[in-house]
Structure formats: structure tokens, C-alpha cells
């Protein structure tokens, strides 16, 4: 009995991974075959990008603040408070900016995609769209994927910028250190591999957020309760995947560029 359950669960997981892989592939390659719904790309870019700016900006700013506070206290023990700027900028650009932005956008947009598409499924709007001769993959999924990838890239830059700014604010106004020194250190020690790491990660996170959000949304069954379930699954799976892929990418990047 127990073995049977394990087997069924394992098969279910494999089947889900297979379905997701096909779904993500179709969502991605649709960009290269007409019809392409450009208006929907812009609408989604507005919802995902412009709509998430404020939370990403605030999250980035306060993360920078916390980093400066924590690092200054530790660095002070070694008489190295001067490198706070370097510490904050490197942490934000390489790791915290991309991951935090991914998690924030996942909470906001993977959930909204899953619930929106899930509601459309249970009210037969997806079937209606298909019956009207429109492919929901092309109309709903592909624009969300590419808009999310594009906008997450820029949102990460915003988060990095405001994170470094937040760190500077704490350094100057709370730790009473030299602001010029902070920003000089923050800028001086940033290298090309750091930038690469920070800007490649959001491309993957954006893809994960949109594809997972749409995947669980379009798989919704079981009415409004099912919509809630899909939303939770989308946020949980996309958040975990973002961190897991971040780990993999960090390892790959470190192997390629060195630390």
C-alpha cells in the first residue's frame, strides 16, 4: 500500500515535470511563429514591470539599509568599516538584488497569473477563447513569459541601485561615515563578472515566475478552491525554483569567471 502511494506520487511528479517542460517550451517558441500578440506584451510589461516597481524599490532600499547596518557592525571589529560600500554593492548586485526581486515579483505576479488564468479556466473563458479560434498559449502565456523576463531584468537593476542607495543612507546618516568613501568603494570594486552574475539571474527568474504562474493557472481544477490551490502552488514552486536556480547559476558563474 505504502509502496503504491510512493510510486503514484513519483509518477505524478515526473508527469508534472514533463508537462511543465513541454508547456515552457511551447510558451517560449511561440514567439517565433505568428500570430504574435504584441499589445499583450506591452500590457503585461506594464502590469509586471511598472506595477512591481514600488515594492522592488522599497525591498531593495531596505535590504541595502540592513546590509549596511549588519556589515558595519561586523567590519568595525576589524577596523574595516571603510569597505561597507564594497560589501553592500557586491552583495546586492551578485545575489540579493536578483533573488529578492525574483521572490518579490513571484509573490506579486506568479500569484496573480495563476489566479487570473485559474479563474478563466473555471469560468470556461479559456475554452471560450479556444472556441473563438485563439490559442491561449500564444495570447496569454507567451506575452507573460517574455514580458516578465524583460521587466525582471530592469527591476533587478532598480533593486540594486536602491539597495546601494539605502546602504549609503545608513552609512552616512546612522553610522556617520563618509558618503563619498562609501560610494567610491561601492563602485570601484564592482567587476564585470559581478554584473554578469546579477543580470543573468533575473532572466531565468523571470522565465520561472511567468511559466510556473501560467502553468499552475491553466492546470486549475476544482472551482474557486482550485484557484486558491493553484495560486499557492505557483508562489511556492516559483520561489523555491528561483533560489535553486540561483544556486546553480552562482556555481556555474563562479566556475566560469572565478570568485
Amino acid at each position, binding site marked *: 500500500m505504502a509502496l503504491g502511494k510512493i510510486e503514484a506520487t513519483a509518477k505524478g511528479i515526473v508527469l508534472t515535470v514533463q508537462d511543465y517542460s513541454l508547456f515552457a517550451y511551447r510558451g517560449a517558441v511561440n514567439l517565433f511563429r505568428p500570430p504574435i500578440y504584441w499589445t499583450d506584451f506591452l500590457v503585461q510589461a506594464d502590469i509586471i514591470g511598472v506595477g512591481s516597481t514600488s515594492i522592488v524599490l522599497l525591498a531593495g532600499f531596505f535590504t541595502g539599509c540592513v546590509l549596511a547596518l549588519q556589515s558595519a557592525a561586523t567590519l568595525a571589529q576589524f577596523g574595516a568599516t571603510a569597505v561597507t560600500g564594497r560589501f553592500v554593492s557586491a552583495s546586492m548586485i551578485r545575489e540579493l538584488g536578483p533573488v529578492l526581486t525574483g521572490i518579490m515579483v513571484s509573490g506579486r505576479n506568479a500569484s496573480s497569473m495563476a489566479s487570473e488564468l485559474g479563474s478563466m479556466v473555471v469560468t470556461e473563458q479559456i475554452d471560450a477563447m479556444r472556441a*473563438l479560434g*485563439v490559442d491561449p498559449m500564444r495570447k496569454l502565456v507567451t506575452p507573460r513569459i517574455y514580458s516578465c523576463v524583460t521587466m525582471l531584468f530592469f527591476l533587478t537593476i532598480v533593486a540594486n541601485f536602491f539597495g546601494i542607495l539605502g546602504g549609503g543612507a545608513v552609512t552616512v546618516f546612522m553610522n556617520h561615515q563618509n558618503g563619498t568613501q562609501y560610494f567610491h568603494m561601492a563602485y570601484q570594486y564592482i567587476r564585470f563578472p559581478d554584473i554578469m552574475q546579477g543580470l543573468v539571474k533575473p532572466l531565468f527568474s523571470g522565465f520561472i515566475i511567468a511559466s510556473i504562474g501560467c502553468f499552475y493557472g491553466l492546470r486549475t481544477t476544482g472551482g474557486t478552491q482550485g484557484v486558491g490551490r493553484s495560486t499557492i502552488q505557483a508562489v511556492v514552486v516559483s520561489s523555491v525554483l528561483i533560489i535553486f536556480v540561483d544556486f546553480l547559476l552562482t556555481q556555474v558563474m563562479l566556475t566560469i569567471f572565478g570568485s
Partner: protein
Amino acid sequence: MTDSVTSFPVEQGGQGSPASQEPVLRFQNVSIAFDGPPVLEDVSFSVAPDETRILLGPAGVGKSVLLKLANGLLRPDAGSIHLFGEEISRVRERDLFNLRTRTGFVFQEGALFDSLTVRDNVAYQLIQERVLDDEIDTRVREALRFVGLEETFRFFPSALSGGMRRRVAIARALIHNPDLLLYDSPTGGLDPITSTTIIELIVKQRDVYRTPSMLVTHRLQDAFTMCTHHFDSNEGRMVPLPDNQIDQKTTFLMLDEGHLIFDGSLHDLVNSENNFVREFLE
């Protein structure tokens, strides 16, 4: 009326599709199951041009599934489905979209896009085809006038009653001048007056445009009204056919536990010896 022999005994009525006319829709030994026993088993029938087929049966018997199979929204496990002469049961999804634009589907609850206005809902197909805005407005107003809802042009679906949503859904299905109309319980859950309004629209569509259609319902009164009435263009309303006549192009199918148990005219239906049919009629 069915084109092939089925293993399940189907009571055949006297009415038949003219042999010379290729059916717009043909099911041959179609079966489908989800996680459990078959929902439909060995179902065969056809819809001829000009014909209106009313699919009767109790709730949960597979009527909506059958309708979704008809334009490829679902795929059968066995059997074949020909839509406008093309076999659709094994066709790739992306190859079905063009074929589906030739059908109009009215969903059970309307299935209007709730984030779009009535205008954009009705014009959905035209917008995707990048038809000019002025032409869209003209055609949408024409379609809304047909269903008597021109004033709702700029409304959102949330501002409409259940009956109005069904009428907008009918307008959306009609705007592309489809070659086949599929109505999924268009009067389900509506009050008798609104139901009659919807049936009047369907009869109007049938008699004015002569579009072949398939209507799913479990309401006998709607089915009988469609058979015994026609749309009088002079009076602009649905009136009973004279001398107790019945519309010869409106015929019936009945499902019971996934099997097609009846296929024939109103006359055959009311005189059926089948116990389930008799019980259903009573």
C-alpha cells in the same frame, strides 16, 4: 440518421438527413472517459446542413462533453469526429483554430471575458483578425441588435444579468457568421420568461440565417417550443406553427449514461417505446 452501425441499440426515428448532403458534423463510434467509467460510449450521429439537433438528457450525462468534442475542445479516446468534412479527433491543437472560427459556441454560463466590455467580448474574433474599429463597431451593434441588447455596448459583463450574458454570448457566437452553432444549455438556470427570450433568439437564428446547430438542454419545454414555433419576420417575434405543424428540420438526440439512446424527430420522440425516453418525457 446515424451513418454507422453502433453496438448500442439506438432508437432511430423516421427522419433522415438527405443522402446527397454532406453532414457538417459527424460522430462515429465516439467514446471518451476521464478518471473513471466512460462518459460517452460508442456515440454516432450527424448534423446535416440546415438541421437543428436538440440533445436531451438528464444533468451529468455527458451532453456538454459531447458538445466540446464537436469542435475539438476535447479529444475522444476512440472513434472519429468529422467537422465540415475534416477529421478533427487526431488533429493538432494549432491546426484546429481555423476550423473553430467557423463554429459558434455558446457556453453554459456565457463564458464572457469579464475584463472586457460587451463590445470587446462580441468583437473578440474580429479584434484578433485586426478588423478596422469602425467596421467592428458596426458589426457588434448589428449583433447586439439581433439579441436586443444594443444599449449594453459599453458595459462590462458584471453589470449584466444572467440572461443578458447568455444573449451577449449568442451575439459573440453569431458575429462571425458561423457555419455551425453549438449551444450548451443556453437556458439553464434562467427564469421561464428569460428562457423563452433565449429560445426565441435561437429560433430566429435558425429561421432567418438557416445555420445548422446543435443545442444541449435538459428542459423539454424549450425543445418542444423550438419544434412547434417559427420566427415570423413580419411580426418580428416567434409564433406557433399553424395547424399543429412541427419544424421538420429540428430533430432530437437523447443520451442516457453515456449512450445515445434516441435519434429522431419530435413525433418519434413522443411515440417512443423506450422506457427511459418515456420516463424523461413524463
